[in-house]
């Protein structure tokens, strides 16, 4: 009897519907959940808004080699390089990024920049709440991307602690 077959089929389908209706929800309760992430859960290898890392002295790891910009398929990284001096030491090598912008209008979070970076300076963070009504807000500047100075270095961290004991002028870690 075809009509019985049809009824059985519908019943089978609806049974799944009713079972799931009462099962516990697996969707994150974002944005109404608790905590700073408002309930979102992010996997460790999630590729979010980038973070420019610092080394153990609090100096920026980025040496402005432009390799991320070269690797980027959507051409959204803009860098201007400058030379470190004794008075202003920003990174550990000869030069640092004076300007480092990522245009999140264009970034596709592919991670090629992270892959290309020879100093592990650029990494993907977990930030994802970057929607905006104004496209120009989506161009993130270095200040927005930079990791905080490591807490153990404290405020007024200086770079050349060893030399200062010998009488040299203190070179502060920028941003501390």
């Amino acid at each position, binding site marked *: 009897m075809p009509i019985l077959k049809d009824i059985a089929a519908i019943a089978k389908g609806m049974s799944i519907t009713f079972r799931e209706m009462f099962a516990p929800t697996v969707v994150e309760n974002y944005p109404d959940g608790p905590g700073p992430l408002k309930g979102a859960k992010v996997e460790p290898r999630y590729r979010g808004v980038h973070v420019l890392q610092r080394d153990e002295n609090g100096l920026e790891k980025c*040496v402005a*080699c*432009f*390799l991320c*910009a*070269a690797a980027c398929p959507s051409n959204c990284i803009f*860098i201007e390089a400058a030379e470190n001096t004794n008075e202003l030491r920003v990174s550990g*090598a*000869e030069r640092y990024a004076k300007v480092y912008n990522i245009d999140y209008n264009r970034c596709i979070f592919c991670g090629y920049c992270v892959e290309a970076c*020879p100093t592990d300076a650029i990494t993907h963070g977990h930030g994802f709440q970057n929607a905006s009504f104004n496209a120009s807000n989506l161009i993130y500047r270095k200040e927005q991307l930079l990791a905080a100075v490591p807490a153990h270095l404290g405020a007024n961290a200086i770079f050349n602690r060893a030399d200062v004991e010998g009488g040299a002028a203190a070179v502060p870690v920028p941003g501390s």
Partner: protein
Amino acid sequence: MADVNITVDGKKVTAPAGTLLIEACKSVGIEVPSFCYYPNLSLQGACRMCLVKVEKMPKLQTACTTVISEGMIAITNNDEVRQARKSMVELLLGNHPLDCPVCDAGGECELQDMTFSYGAAESKFMEAKNHKDEQQWSPVVYFDRPRCILCYRCVRVCGEAMDVWALGVQNRGVVSVIAPNKEDHLECEECGMCIDICPVGALTSGAYRYKTRPWEMNHVGTICTHCGDGCKTTLGVRRSDSGMQIVRGDNRDKSGINGDFLCIKGRYAFDFADDPQRVTTPLIRRDGQLAPSTWEEAFELIGKRFAEIRDKEGGRAIGVVGSNRTTNEENYLLSKFARVVLKTNSIDHRRTADFPAFAAAMVGKPHAAATMRDVFNAPAILVIGNNPTEQHPLLAWQIRNNVRLHRARLYVINSRPIKLRRQATSFTEIPQGTEGQAAAFLGGDDSAAEALGSGSREMWVGLRDKLRGEGKLIIIFDSAIRGKDISALVKFGSAVSGAKFVCLGDYSNSRGAADMGLYPDFLPGYRPIADASTFKDEWGDMPTAPGLNVSQMAEAAAAGTLKGFYVVGSNPVGGLGLDPFAFSNTFVVVQDMFLTETAQMADVVLPSANAYEKAGTFTNTCGDIQLVKKAGEVSDVKSDFEMIVRIADATGFEVRKLVPFGGRGTSADMGQSRGAQSGEADRHVVWLEAHGLEPKMSPFDPMAILDEIQRLVPGYDVSRMNLLAGNDQHTTTVGTGQGGVQDAKLIAPANDNLFTSGTLGRYSRALNSVIENRNPEPAEEVAAD
């Protein structure tokens, strides 16, 4: 030389005897890696990167020092050779820092390329690397010792090719280091050739260091805007807040007339463009002060005033001064604008050589002008006056290397012991200011020898006979020889078979300014005003009496008869010493980059783009015409071309009569109603189509004027395809006008040295920093070894 047959990797190669194995391989597309080998420098055999297997020779041979011989069989790619290369790279990297991410050479480093192509993936060295701090050798040359691979290219180029010998080697073997001539710093010509030739990032440029990376720039090959030699320079540009900024100059494209060469100005002195003192808004004088205004207001004012003066007082009441650094198109346009729109022949420029007299002397000798390339190949050269090392660095390079590589014979006649005497077969010192007499003597006036001082008459006659005996002599002279002395010299040259001439003008387009008729008495192509028929047909009505030259303009202004004064990219007050107060009752318009002495007295100042910020063509002092391309950009400035067209428009002139833009189908009346041969624009289209070119659609397109130049200026009908492809083309003197001898006092040579460059030099940080760093005494010359 006889040809020799060899076999490389199974391929048959035939090359002239004496060819190096590395070059023979290159000729059939087989790459032999090398570091120390560099064409046209002495052989070094230092890096051993070029090792190849040659049959019947016991060990691997260096291809860069092996001369091919009949029946030689070479193998460039077997296991043994590959292993040898791998080891060489490994040794080079033994103490090489892991600097690529910050190193200026990264991305265009030969060591990177070699490691990638031929090197091993890992190193067997465990030892800590030996670090040495970077050293600053001069404002523009830095040295990072650990990166040096001791190829000695820098030492050789500085010594052999530049004849400066400022770099040397200290110590021996693995502890060798490259050292500058003054213990810890360099005192040299600061040409930066060593930086350019360094295969790695050991020598770096003070101007470009740590700024960006090669792949981050656009590279634009254009022509240097400084001296009259016309080197091709490749400018690296990046976007900046106000447009495109030039961050580097080099000659990565070695196709130009300068080959490997650039002097300090072509390499570093592009930075005047972003000097903060640059004018970037139009200024109009209000209540005695120059105040910012808008382009519309400025053009309206200028157009109204010029039209008023022209209609009330006649065109003679307006004077025009053009520039040595604007393009041919701008100069031609200005020449046309003055005559056709302002109705005045009073147009002039700062003359740095007597080109009209040269043109007059060259009548009937259409192919007797030498090219810059000829100077490198000629068997004999005569230089009278001038100091090319300082004033014409490329010319000096050509002469020097011609002598070194081709054993050319160089004859120098000068009042000072100039540096080129070191290459000279014969150096004859004459009293100051007697270059003209020397020319007259050579031309056959024996009595002129009296003035030539020390040398006996027999010596002079001997020299003249010797020069007469030289075939294919190139005779080079500057503004010290003027008027009839030029004709005497050309007359002398005509007696030498195949002799050619170079008349040296000082700025980048001095020759172009002269060729395009920035003269009160000549039209483009040195055609005297009286003989204006072709131009009258094309241009329409224009005044027939010769106009005023610059100094007469100043006199007329003081006398109150010059009511309008239009200066395009020139500084006659600062440069030619005109009295600024003479112009107090004259309406003065100045187009310039900076508030020069002339701009300060102007009623309207229009900010202009420099030669690196626009397109067009330049003619160098030898008459080689080359394409100028737009590299940098600064918002809010306009090219002189556009400004001239806009001013013409503001006077109510029909722009299409000035710039023949537009073509078939762009306008209702482009010939259909008047017959194919009537209007200017029609002929333009006909000519364009005959040459397979596109009609120009904009009145600001310099190419539209280039069409007209090629059509009307004799000698400029060079291959457009070659020109657009970036090749130098030689203009001939076929059919140039009569030229003529003028008042010799009007010639004011620039007298720039290696580190100055008129107004541009004043605003160049690179040049100024080198001058400030200099010992007040000139660096002594080092003997060649």
